[in-house]
Each structure stands twice: as C-alpha cells, then as structure tokens.
C-alpha cells in the first residue's frame, strides 16, 4: 500500500479544527461522537454510494460497539443513511422511517486493528447493483474521518468539498485532474493519492475550498484513464 499525502498547512486535515467544530454542531443529543458523528458517517456513506441505500450491513468497533446502542449510534447511522443531518429531530425515529423508505439494515460487531475507538464499517448496496464498503470514525465533537473506501486507506473528513477519482495508474493523471480544477479556479486544500499496487487502480482524494460544479466534475470524469468520480459537498454553513 502506498499512501501519499500533501497538505498546504503542514497538518493533517483532521487537525484542522475551526471554531464551529468547537462551538457546535447544533445537534440532537445525546453524544457528539456517538450521535452527531454517526449521523454524518451515515450521510457520507449515502453520498459516496451515490444513490438511495437499499441494504446496509453495519459493523461497529470499539466504543461504538460497547456503548453505541444507548447513545442511539445505531439510529443515528441509519438516520444518516436516510439523508438526515445531525440537527434533525426525527433521528430517534430513524428505524421506523427506514422501514417506510424500504431500507433494510442489520448491525454486527467487529474488532479492528489500529482503528479509532469510534469506528463503523458500512457495507451498502443501492437497488441497481452498486456497492460501497466504507470504514469511518467519529473523532470527536461530531467530526468524522473516512478511513477506508473499498479497503483502500484514505483519510478525509467532509470538512471540505471532496472529490474522489477512481483512475488507472498511468503517469500524468494527477496533473490532468488538477489542471481541470485550476482551470475552474478551484483551490485544492488537501490531496492524497492511494493505490493498492503499482499499475493497479488509484484512488485520488481531493479536498477543495470551493464547490466543484457539475460541469467540472464531468470534465474530470471524461478524462482518459478515469473510471469514475464521486463527490461530497460539505455541509452548508
């Protein structure tokens, strides 16, 4: 596994606390890490799957497994899969709402090595055969970090607009993608490039200050060597 991380600020993205991470979020209780963070993990997974979630097999690790039920972590994850935000007063009713929306889910326990105590692994499917496996952790104060996507190590937070590019491992691919972004005056805040082996599939994770409009995303998707792109837009202020 080769993991290459660049950052302009000399700090990892999870260290970048803005003051409204501290005084906030405005959220439904009882736990910022176990409830609000779990809603965000669910919502992130829904976005990265790119469609309505039809089945969800969710594994809880560490403190999520030990104390998750009483904190409503299970209800919060499902609420996020339904597209809710952390301040939605319907979070406690998410299991009932999932039934109405045709979302089938189950929960299990997993023991991971070197994972944050508040970690969940979500295996999702939409109705059309699209699958996503995402490992994410709730790192405090409702902030999250996506740790793995389909077993490839990543490390992004949703604090920025995030573009994920699945591409072939060919030279110059990164330059092509960043050229499209700079052409649209979109500033890259953090970028990481991950691949499982030389010549294999590459996952580019690009966090940007500005929103990436659909037209720029389709230009990138159409680049030779790009298999697909996924986009997460950060929560509105």
């Amino acid at each position, binding site marked *: 596994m080769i993991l290459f991380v660049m950052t302009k600020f000399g700090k990892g993205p999870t260290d970048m606390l803005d*003051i409204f991470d501290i*005084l906030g979020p405005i959220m439904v*209780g009882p736990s*910022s890490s176990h409830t609000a963070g779990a809603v965000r993990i669910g919502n992130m997974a829904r976005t990265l799957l790119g469609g309505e979630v039809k089945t969800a097999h969710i594994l809880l690790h560490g*403190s999520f497994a030990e104390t998750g039920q009483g904190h409503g972590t299970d209800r919060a994850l499902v609420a996020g899969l339904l597209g809710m935000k952390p301040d939605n007063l319907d979070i406690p009713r998410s299991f009932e709402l999932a039934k109405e929306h045709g979302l089938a889910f189950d929960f299990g326990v997993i023991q991971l090595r070197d994972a944050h*105590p508040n970690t969940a692994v979500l295996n999702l499917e939409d109705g059309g055969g699209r699958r996503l496996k995402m490992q994410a952790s709730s790192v405090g*104060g409702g902030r999250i970090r996506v740790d793995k996507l389909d077993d490839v190590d990543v490390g992004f937070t949703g604090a920025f607009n995030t573009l994920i590019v699945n591409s072939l491992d060919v030279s110059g691919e990164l330059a092509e993608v960043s050229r499209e972004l700079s052409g649209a005056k979109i500033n890259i805040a953090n970028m990481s490039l991950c691949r499982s082996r030389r010549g294999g599939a590459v996952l580019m994770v690009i966090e940007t200050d500005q929103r990436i409009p659909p037209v720029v995303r389709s230009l990138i998707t159409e680049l030779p060597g790009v298999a697909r792109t996924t986009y997460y837009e950060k929560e509105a202020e």
Partner: protein
Amino acid sequence: MALDSMQEIFDKIDRFGKPFWEIVLDTDVEERQVTREASFEKMRAAWRAMLETDDTYRADRRSVSGLVGGDGRKMRDYASAARTLSGGYVSEAIAVALCTGESNACMRRIVAAPTAGACGVLPAVLIPLWRGGQASEDEVVEALYVASGIGAVIGYKACIAGASGGCQAEIGTASAMAAGALTALRGGGPAQIGHAVAMALKNLLGLVCDPVAGLVEVPCVKRNVVGAVNAISCADMALAGIESRVPVDQVIECMGDVGRRLPVEFRETALGGLAVTPFGQEVKRQMRGSQA
C-alpha cells in the same frame, strides 16, 4: 484552525492591539473565508440555540434509561423557595447546567460545546448573566469567541473527546472555555484569561469518562454542574490576580498526555469507574433486557 497555542493568541493580541475575541474572529474569517458579519451571526445562532434549549426545557421528559430528567426544575424550585448556599448566580448556573444536560440526554437539540456531553457548561455560566442584565447579547457572543478559541487550542494540542482523553477532555475543556469566557466578559486581560483556563483544566485533570450503561446520563449531566461551578471560581480567582503556577500551554499538553495514558476502561467504554459499580451493572442489565 490556525491558532496552535494560547501563546500564539497572546502574541497576536500584542501585535495587533485587538482583544482576545477579535483575534479568534479574525482567524475564523480567514480560515473559512467568510465575512465578519457572517461569522458573528453564526456565533449568535449558536448562542440562541443554547437559550432555546433552556427555554424549551420540560421537567417531565425522561432519557432512554429513565435515569435523567426533572432535576433542573428541582434546582430552580429550591432556589426560588429557599436560601441557597451558593447564592443567586451560582444556583441558576447549576439549574441551567442540569436543564441543558438533561435535554441532551432526552435527544433534544443542543449546542455541543465542545461536545454534547459537556453542552451545559457554557450556557450555565452565560445565560444567568445575560438574563440578569449583566451582559448584552453582543458581549455574550464575544465571550463565546473567547471560549471557542480556547477550545480550538485544546483540541489541537490535546483532545476534546471522552473516548480519547476521558471526561477531563470534555467537561475539563468546557470548564476551561467557560472560565476564559467569563474572565474576558468581566474585563480580564489575556494573561488572566490564560490563568483562568489553566486553573480550570488543572482542577479537573484526570477525570475519567465512566458513563453508566454507556449513556450520556450518569454522571455526565451533573458533571456539567461541576464544570460550570469550577469555571466560575477559576474566573473569579484569575480576576482576583491569582495565577496558575504551571503555564497554560503546558497544562493543556499535560491534559492530552494524561488522556493518552488513561486506561481504555476510563475512556467512554463503560468498562470502568461508576459504570461497573453494582448500580451501574444493574442499569446495564436492565437496558439489555428492555432491548431484547
């Protein structure tokens, strides 16, 4: 956020000749690329959400386990009927801390500050001053900037999650934020704010996170009270000219170090402390039973 230490904030206060809260506001404006007005209004919205939690408190609500609810009302009833030991301001701070903490446990909307478990500390010290006409809304919002700047530094240098550093990282941080906010609100200078933060954090150093049945209920709700009362006393000490012997940035780093060394049983796993008392285990057994 680009404020990595309390010293950096103090240096910027000296360099730019601005108060503590404005250095934090400037940093937010730069970091998030927003206008000063947008930043200030977002902070005002957080303040109003804190007020709404307390305004919509109902004593008949109960938490998932049934262990939490109604104590905020008891405190207010007692304070209005009897001569309290702690006096008007502190009694009301206790009541607001309880009402907000209980609301959180009952899945109501709160403002995490810095976490949901510690959401009662800042409202507890600020709401009674504002209701009593001792601070305008803008002054309270400015105090919240001071609090959030302190919290951002602690989050960067140490940690703010119970799962990472125990209760000292949650209630301890909230208390330090509140102590700094109160000191600023009462006209204390940067050095005094630093001493208030250092004293508040030191006083709660080592506090474990040991929630009964893993719920943010017992002892969390009442620890909001201790965070608030600790903040008030540390702010008063700092305003009296009392200093922390250990410099504030060293105290913050020390809190992070203590957190990392805390056994996992005392970091929100509900495997130690009050969670494993006979009472705690009985609650856990009942919770499991009710879910089966």
